[in-house]
């Protein structure tokens, strides 16, 4: 008996009990649908996290003042050991692609009409490259404007909206940051929230020298962003920066350095691992319902075998081997579960779409998730179909024929 006629036979068997077949499949339908929705949600979350991390800048090392995990740490900004010269020295390293120091301070921005509390960050044009952050209006300031301590500002989207209204081009207007009057020369495109939930668009960028000389009077920098030439050299660059700054700050191990170099890729990997774990967790919960569906199939197949004992007897009498009977009921169970799997895929796709539309959550349906869920459904059919099929094939032909 070949596979094709086995499948046709199984289909006609299922058709004879449409309602029962449908109810049996329901367990698998829900299971497969749930697996697909859960994986879609998990992968959606993962894509979102990956996107947020990419928005921080790729291959990024961040140098902050203060010992790594040090016991004595001042409030952010109070340690003043990092300097612009440190940043310039790091920029000399061949593996450092872009270097952008930052000096931030809290300001009240005033457009003459409204006030908005935000932070002003003094930096250099390299920051825009590192963060891969295009402007919506105007342009970012130049290195010349940095050196000249020009009174210019580039607004983040949130600041621009709150001071001038959304969609309005404020380039050419002047605003006041605390007591410093600056001219708006650009507005950055929206970037959204960080993965910790802070608004990356609530910021005003000004030239670093402007911030140091005209706004704060400080000579240090708060942070140095360093973009490495590639992902592979990040650890080497991290060591090089540590050596360089130790030298510049005259720190001889075992003395604690007064700075720390963080690799944001590690942060990204951690975040990705977290979302992967979450996805696996959600999918395994859904897989449990698939298992329950499998038990439903086993239950119904046991009933079916009992009901069809005489049929089994007849088939055996005319020459069906135990293997052929086993195959027949196994194929029936697998057809049942695969059919449920296919319907479940449709339900899962519809469910994912519904969630993305109604709840606005990001969902990513991958073909591998569909294959996985369908394959798993088939495996459930084989696993839970085997016992009833085995029971059928073990029947004694005489007893089966006499069964009423």
């Amino acid at each position, binding site marked *: 008996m070949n596979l094709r006629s086995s499948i046709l036979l199984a289909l006609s068997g299922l058709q*004879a009990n449409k309602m029962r077949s449908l109810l049996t499949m329901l367990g698998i339908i829900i299971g497969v649908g749930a697996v697909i929705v859960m994986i879609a949600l998990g992968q959606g979350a993962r894509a979102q996290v990956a996107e947020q991390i990419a928005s921080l800048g790729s291959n990024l090392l961040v140098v902050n003042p203060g010992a790594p995990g040090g016991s004595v740490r001042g409030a952010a900004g109070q340690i003043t050991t990092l300097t612009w010269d440190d940043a310039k020295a790091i920029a000399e390293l061949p593996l450092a692609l872009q270097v952008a120091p930052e000096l931030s301070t809290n300001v009240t921005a005033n457009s003459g009409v409204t006030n908005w509390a935000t932070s002003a960050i003094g930096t250099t044009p390299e920051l825009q490259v590192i963060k891969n952050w295009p402007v919506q209006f105007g342009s970012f300031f130049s290195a010349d404007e940095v050196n000249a301590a020009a009174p210019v500002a580039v607004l983040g989207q949130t600041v621009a909206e709150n001071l001038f209204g959304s969609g309005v081009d404020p380039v050419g207007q002047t605003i006041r940051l605390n007591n410093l009057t600056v001219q708006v020369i650009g507005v950055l495109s929206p970037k959204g929230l960080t993965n910790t939930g802070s608004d990356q668009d609530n910021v005003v960028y000004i030239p670093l020298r402007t911030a140091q000389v005209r706004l704060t009077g400080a000579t240090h920098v708060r942070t140095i962003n360093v973009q490495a030439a590639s992902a592979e050299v990040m650890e080497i660059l991290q060591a090089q920066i540590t050596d360089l700054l130790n030298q510049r700050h005259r720190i001889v191990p075992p003395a604690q350095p007064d700075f720390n170099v963080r690799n944001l890729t590690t942060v990204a990997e951690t975040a990705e691992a977290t979302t992967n774990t979450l996805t696996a967790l959600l999918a395994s919960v859904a897989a449990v319902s698939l298992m329950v569906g499998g038990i439903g199939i086993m239950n119904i197949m046991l009933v079916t075998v009992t009901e069809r004992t005489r049929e089994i007897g*007849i088939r055996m*009498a005319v020459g*069906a*081997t135990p293997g052929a009977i086993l195959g027949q009921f196994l194929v029936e169970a697998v057809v049942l579960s695969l059919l449920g799997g296919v319907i479940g895929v449709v339900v899962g796709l519809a469910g994912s779409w519904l969630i993305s539309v109604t709840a606005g959550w990001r969902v990513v349906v991958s073909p591998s998730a569909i294959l996985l869920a369908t394959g798993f459904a088939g495996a459930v059919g084989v696993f839970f179909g085997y016992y009833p099929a085995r029971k059928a094939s073990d029947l004694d032909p005489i007893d089966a*024929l006499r069964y009423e």
Partner: protein
Amino acid sequence: MTHAVIELRNVTKTYTMGEVTVHALRGIDLTIHRGGFVAIMGPSGSGKSTTMNMIGCLDRPSSGVYLLEGEDVTHMSKSELAGVRNRRLGFIFQGFHLLQRATALASVELPMLYAGVPDAERRERALQAMRLVGLAGREHHRPNQLSGGQQQRVAIARSLVNEPSLLLADEPTGNLDSRTSLEVMAILQRLHRERAITIVMVTHEPDIAAFAQRIIRFKDGVIVADESVAKPAQADLLLAREGGATA
């Protein structure tokens, strides 16, 4: 001469039901030659059905030897026995034993399905077998759309499609009225005559046993009589006498 179709040597069968041991067969010796038409008779519990199951390779003896066409089938595996039933034996049952959901044609094709006969040939042979038993035109009827006699003819067609050397009929007329019984017996006699097929039939009706060439009687698990019938009754003649032969 060639081997006997059936040769049973001191075959016994005991069943254990809890603490009670039932001796269904207490040592049967039986030889049936090719081309024979044998009726087995006896009261219920006499061992005739057990013998039939044994001959049909549906059951195995507790002791003794069963040679089917000279081949010892006593120690064959379940799968091997299934193959023997499929290709060398044909079954006809009292209750017809057709698949309720299958059409007549599908029922007749069933043994060939398990023998691995290709689709086209299977269909051709099934149609041929149905014509042979006079069921042309009923191919797509299901059992509940057929009379008892027609159902039994479907079963006969099914038993013939793999061209077995031995046909086993277990009370083939038990569920049929006398006229239909005659028709079925006429078909069996014709098969026996024209195809030289060996037939073993269990029956408790003397009228039906009268169509066989040899009658074996069982009682309490042993053979008590084994007699040749000098002049077996002719079912088609009886039908003709009643008027209007159909077989």
